[in-house]
């Protein structure tokens, strides 16, 4: 058997009053290394043992404050710097929404720090053995008795004197506690290492089987196995047989303004072009005209189709009729279509249409300009020279 050393002397008491009295006497006798064990906190014990307020509170405070600061800074960085996201229309740094998380991180860090601090400062973590563990004394004081233990390390410790003191105080079950000097468990023993390896293999094997095999057995369905309707395919679920659902009547796409005179012969109220004929707008109109209108209307709106008779040629855009039209009428034709011309409302956005109208007006102006106007345009003006 390994060498054993005396840890201390313990005594049990029956009532809280006795233990407070005993603690006071032991304190007054000058002992420093002693401790009291009770099943619950006993009022008056701090004063009897002359305990100073614990310093653990400062650990809690520091970690609590750093938890609050960390949580707030992290959320500030994540939600408004690194990956800003609009949530519920709230600002990126939405303080009220962050408060509960800040509170929880504060509490989490403070409590963890308190527990780890307590283990470190009072139980000398990572040491996990205490000579009083597994003694009849500890069993008694953790159920219904009140105990006091004077350690042998104390300067004043003398076996006979302490026994006498306990007897004087009417302590019962006075017993001496021994502990082995050498460590009972050796961490590098082959037996322990083999056990560790076996446990490790079993754990990782079980994890592998669970994650890769067990989870794919029949009752667990995964997304790819679930019933679904592919886009554009027939549905047996809906009565109309469409796999894709139509939007509710009156649904308007974002950024889209519906045309209110669609289907009528002409706009009821004359529409005016909301865009100014700037160079940028004319460029846009030209681009859209050449893409969507010119195949039939021709590059200059003369009605000379590139389609070589595959489709009837439209009349010229330079007729008196079209030139006499208001902008709104052209808009109306683009949206509604006319004769064989289909609606272009899905190809051209609202701004595109108005830009195209500006471009058509420019074409009409170019084709029907008076000589004086041509002379005016040909003059060496700074803007013409740049061209």
């Amino acid at each position, binding site marked *: 058997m390994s060498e054993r050393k005396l840890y201390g002397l313990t005594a049990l008491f029956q009532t809280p009053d006795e233990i407070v009295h005993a603690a006071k006497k032991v304190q007054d006798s000058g002992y420093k290394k002693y401790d009291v064990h009770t099943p619950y906190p006993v009022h008056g014990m701090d004063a009897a043992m002359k305990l100073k307020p614990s310093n653990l509170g400062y650990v809690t405070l520091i970690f609590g404050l750093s938890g609050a600061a960390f949580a707030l800074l992290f959320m500030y960085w994540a939600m408004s710097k690194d990956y800003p996201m609009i949530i*519920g229309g709230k600002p990126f740094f939405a303080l009220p929404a962050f408060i*509960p998380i800040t509170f929880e991180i504060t509490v989490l860090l403070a409590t963890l720090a308190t527990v780890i601090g307590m283990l470190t400062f009072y139980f000398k973590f990572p040491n996990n053995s205490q000579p009083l563990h597994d003694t009849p004394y500890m069993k008694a004081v953790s159920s219904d008795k009140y105990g006091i233990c004077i350690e042998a390390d104390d300067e004043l410790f003398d076996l006979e004197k302490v026994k006498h003191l306990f007897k004087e105080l009417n302590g019962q079950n006075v017993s001496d506690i021994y502990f082995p000097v050498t460590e009972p468990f050796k961490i590098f023993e082959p037996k322990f290492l083999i056990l560790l390896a076996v446990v490790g293999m079993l754990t990782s094997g079980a994890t592998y089987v669970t994650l890769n095999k067990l989870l794919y057995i029949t009752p667990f369905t995964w997304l790819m196995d679930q019933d679904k309707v592919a886009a554009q395919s027939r549905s047996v679920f809906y009565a109309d047989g469409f796999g894709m659902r139509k939007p509710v009547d009156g649904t308007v796409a974002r950024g889209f303004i519906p045309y209110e005179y669609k289907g009528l012969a002409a706009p009821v109220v004359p529409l005016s072009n909301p865009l100014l004929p700037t160079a940028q707008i004319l460029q846009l109109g030209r681009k859209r005209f050449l893409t969507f209108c010119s195949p039939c209307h021709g590059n200059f709106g003369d009605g000379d189709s590139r389609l070589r008779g595959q489709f009837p040629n439209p009349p010229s855009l330079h007729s008196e009729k079209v030139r006499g039209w208001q902008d709104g009428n052209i808009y109306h034709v683009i949206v509604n279509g006319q004769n064989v011309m289909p609606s272009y409302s899905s190809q051209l956005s609202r701004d595109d249409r108005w830009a195209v109208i500006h471009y058509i007006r420019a074409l009409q102006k170019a084709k029907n300009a008076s000589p004086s106007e041509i002379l005016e345009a040909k003059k060496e003006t700074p803007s013409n020279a740049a061209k």
Partner: protein
Amino acid sequence: MPQNDLIYQKKNLPESLKRLGFILLGIGLALGLAGFLFDAQRAFFNYLLTFIFIMSIAVGSLFLIALEYIAGAEWSTPIRRIPEFFASSIPLLFVLVIPLLLNIHSIFEWSQKNVVAGDKILTGKSPYLNASFFVIRTILTIGIWSLFYFLFVRNSRKQDVTKDQLLTKKNIKLSAIFIPVFAITVTLAAIDWLMSLAPHWFSTIFGIYFFAGSFVAALAAVTLAIILLKEKGYLHPRMTNEHLFSLGALQFTFINFWAYIAFSQFMLIWYANLPEETVWFIARWGGMWTYISLGLIFAHFLVPYAVLLSQPAKMDPKRLKFISIWILAAHALDLYWLIMPQVHTANAGILSIVFEFGFLIAAVGGFLLVFYFNAKKHNLVPVGDPKLEKGLNFRL
């Protein structure tokens, strides 16, 4: 322990207290009533604020008494007379409420029949929010509180003479009945007197919010009274600072509780962003209300939290005295924040702020007089209570 320790000489509070009480009452009433000359409606709201202030401290004290009995607390037995004295103003509420009931139409929008008739929501709420049912509820609520006050205090005072331990048992049973009744009545009072000032608005947490604020105010008032009386030697000589610890701890707890509830109420409304709910907070933002709303966070949470955080602070009479006065002021500010936006949204003129303090000053004077006249008739220490000896020996 020597038995003669328990013999306690009944002490009267000094005449100067009575004089101060009457002076404060006089000045306060004069100021408050002068307010009616300038802005009668606003003066009524100030009077309502003071009424709620007195009510919250009185009823919170009654709850503290019930709490002591039902928890079997010993530390608070030597000081139980202080909340009892505060609670003795509950029957006075019957008198104080009369001016409010007589002018119900100038305070509560829902009591005006022509307003309700043109308003779908108020018409829907009118089975509950109507003048006659309101008066019945008010009288019933104050009546229930008064009944419990008389029962508690009668047993407690009888014990001074008879030393009958069964009276404590009776009061324990009484508090078990009182606490759920208190929960309901205080919620109703909060809804009736405060929430219905903005009759379209609703918040299910409002009752708890009012309870949290009023209990912490009652604790502050009790703590302040205890420290002042102890300094002058009117309480039992064996009382120590450790008796104050639990009062400090309870204040700290309920300051946190108030902040928790207040923030929950705000965050849910802010998050959902429904117009019918946010309107209440919008009325408390802009102009001086922005500063009062933000100031409330500091006054009613951050400052008391920081001051009461450490363990020694909860036992230090000086610090507790300071923070008790602070919390009482913060409670008044809280009530101001709850009530006043309903009557004026613009910045308040300096002149009218002077009048706003009038009734509160009168309330302080009134409480001094309540203490003076109570102490004249009754012991400041419950000498017959079986828990008194243990309570005096209480140590942390």
